[in-house]
């Protein structure tokens, strides 16, 4: 186990820029997820860490060692592939012991380790079976056991749950998280599924077009997105555009089509006065104000309901407000009357300022 650093890593294929520039410092024992839409460079980044692709520029360090030019064999990395990539001609025991055999671990130690790992992934007794005799979820667990058999300095996973159905995926997420808490292996995980990233990671790097847009804890990625892209990619979001007109009581004052509203200042962002800004508000932070005295110090705006969607425990309601904007409000069905005209309110700290 080691820390992992990517310093100014770039990958170009002729004119195509797969990874524009990535700087990352993954701490020892940390579980970091590269999250982003298809084609944003997640796999390319992961494969450069693995050593399957050479970066065009930049350095990759595991611990203190610069591994940039090193072939995959010499990097001491474990990897779980999306299609499992188990060896079809080897038994489960031999699959798991693959890296141990290559590293000449004595037979007795090997057997012991195989037993330990099969207990760990809760598949005891499958030693003599072949991969084709196991289900997808079981194969994925074997792939994980193979990757950590000889404790790797870094564990890489590229959409390892992508081929599983929803129920199994959720169960495997819990297992992965439990394993990570137990083993504390430095892990880089790739997914395009924000829910998966949220539930598994210590930190998330949201990638867009070959760059990292935001590197933060799951709760900050969700609660304090720094760019519109991040806000949009992770969950549902409302945007209100306007101009920054000043500050009051630690809140930013923004003039928007729905009037002057107050919003949280992002600690890291700096804005010149009068600059154009966007305020993002999560749908679950918006509520219907039934009586004016309930509003308190909330931002409020009057609007008209244009659609309602019942999703089970919650309703998604679209409300048209001035400035040709529709706000998405998430609420309990019981909070909603039949009235078409409503007042929407939200606490100032739930509006997050984003640079345009």
């Amino acid at each position: 186990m080691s820390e992992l650093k990517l310093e100014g890593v770039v990958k170009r294929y002729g004119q195509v820029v797969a990874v524009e520039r990535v700087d990352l410092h993954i701490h020892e024992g940390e579980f970091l997820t590269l999250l982003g839409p298809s084609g944003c460079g997640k796999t390319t980044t992961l494969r450069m860490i693995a050593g399957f692709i050479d970066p065009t520029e930049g350095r990759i360090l595991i611990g203190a060692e610069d591994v940039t030019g090193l072939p995959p064999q010499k990097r001491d990395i474990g990897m779980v592939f999306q299609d499992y990539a188990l060896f079809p001609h080897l038994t489960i025991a031999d699959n798991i012991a693959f890296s141990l055999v290559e590293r000449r671990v004595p037979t007795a130690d090997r057997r012991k380790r195989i037993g330990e790992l099969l207990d760990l992934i809760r598949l005891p007794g499958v030693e003599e079976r072949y991969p084709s005799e196991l289900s997808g979820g079981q194969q994925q667990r074997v792939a994980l056991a193979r990757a950590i058999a000889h404790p790797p300095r870094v564990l890489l996973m590229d959409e390892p749950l992508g081929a599983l159905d929803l129920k199994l995926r959720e169960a495997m997420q819990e297992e992965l998280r439990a394993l990570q808490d137990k083993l504390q292996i430095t892990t880089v995980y790739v997914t395009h599924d924000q829910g998966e990233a949220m539930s598994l990671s210590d930190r998330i790097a949201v990638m867009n077009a070959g760059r990292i847009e935001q590197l933060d804890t799951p709760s900050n990625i969700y609660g304090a997105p720094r760019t519109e892209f991040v806000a949009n990619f992770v969950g549902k979001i409302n945007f209100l555009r306007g101009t920054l007109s000043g500050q009051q009581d630690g809140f930013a004052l923004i003039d928007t089509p729905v009037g002057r509203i107050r919003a949280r200042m992002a600690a890291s962002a700096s804005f010149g006065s009068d600059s154009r800004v966007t305020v993002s508000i999560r749908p679950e932070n918006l509520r219907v104000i039934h009586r004016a005295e309930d509003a308190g110090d909330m931002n409020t705006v009057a609007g008209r309901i244009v659609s309602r969607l019942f999703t089970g425990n919650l309703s998604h309601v679209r409300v048209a407000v001035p400035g040709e904007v529709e706000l998405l409000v998430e609420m309990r069905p019981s909070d909603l009357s039949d009235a078409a005209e409503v007042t929407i309110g939200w606490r100032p700290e739930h509006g997050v300022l984003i640079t345009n």
Partner: protein
Amino acid sequence: MNTRWSLFLVVPLAVSLVLLVASQSVFLESSLHADLGFGRMAPAWSLHNYIRVLTDDFYLRVLWLTVMVSGIAAVLTIVVGFPIAYVLARMRSRWAGVLMLGILLSTFVTIVIKIFGLIVIFNADGPVNRLLLGAGIVAKPINLIGTPAGVVVGLMYFTIGFAVLLMYAVARTVPRSVEEAAEIHGASRRRVFLRVILPICLPGIAVGFLTVFNMCMGAFTSAALLGGGRVLTLPVLIQRTILFEVKYGMAGTISAILLFSVLLINLFGIFVLRRFRIGRRVVA
């Protein structure tokens, strides 16, 4: 997995059956009639010809030579063809398609033309010999034509295109990610080949070997032209027995021997593949 691959053996077997049985069923029948000379055959059935062939040293030596030459040619063709096919299967550039097309086209150029090309190249004062002589590697020109080695080269030339196409399909069955999994978990390129690529491809390679071997056993043109009349294989001998000796019964018998040898060797191949589960077990 094992069972599925064995089933593929039906393909070379079926090809052999159609090529050999269908076209030679007439000869099979005539093999049971003793020759009376001038193309006439005894009306009664007898095993006369078979006894003759299986007890005469001459025929047994020809059979042995045919099997040896075909076996060596098939092994060498696969040894040369598999790496080519593997590289083609792994190529990601546009050239892969062009090269495949080249192989495909050259496969369907008639063997007569290809063999004459070979004869020109390996001639006593052809480019190969001039190069070897000039470099002082040999003292006098080496002569492939009329030797078993020449026939092996001819058979390889005849079958290499088919072999590459067959092996290409086999190499494509190994996912790239499986190789990468081996690499990242510590296997050197050589170990990846020995522990992953080769064992996964082995059943397919065996099928390819048998197919090529069957082609060689029945190959007449390469053997006749490069053997130069001095290397007798079964197909060449059959032609001679018909044309020069006009012994239809004997020719039928030799054909039958050829057919049964091929069948036996193929059945043996199937047996071996079924008997041994391909792949190396490290942990018992």
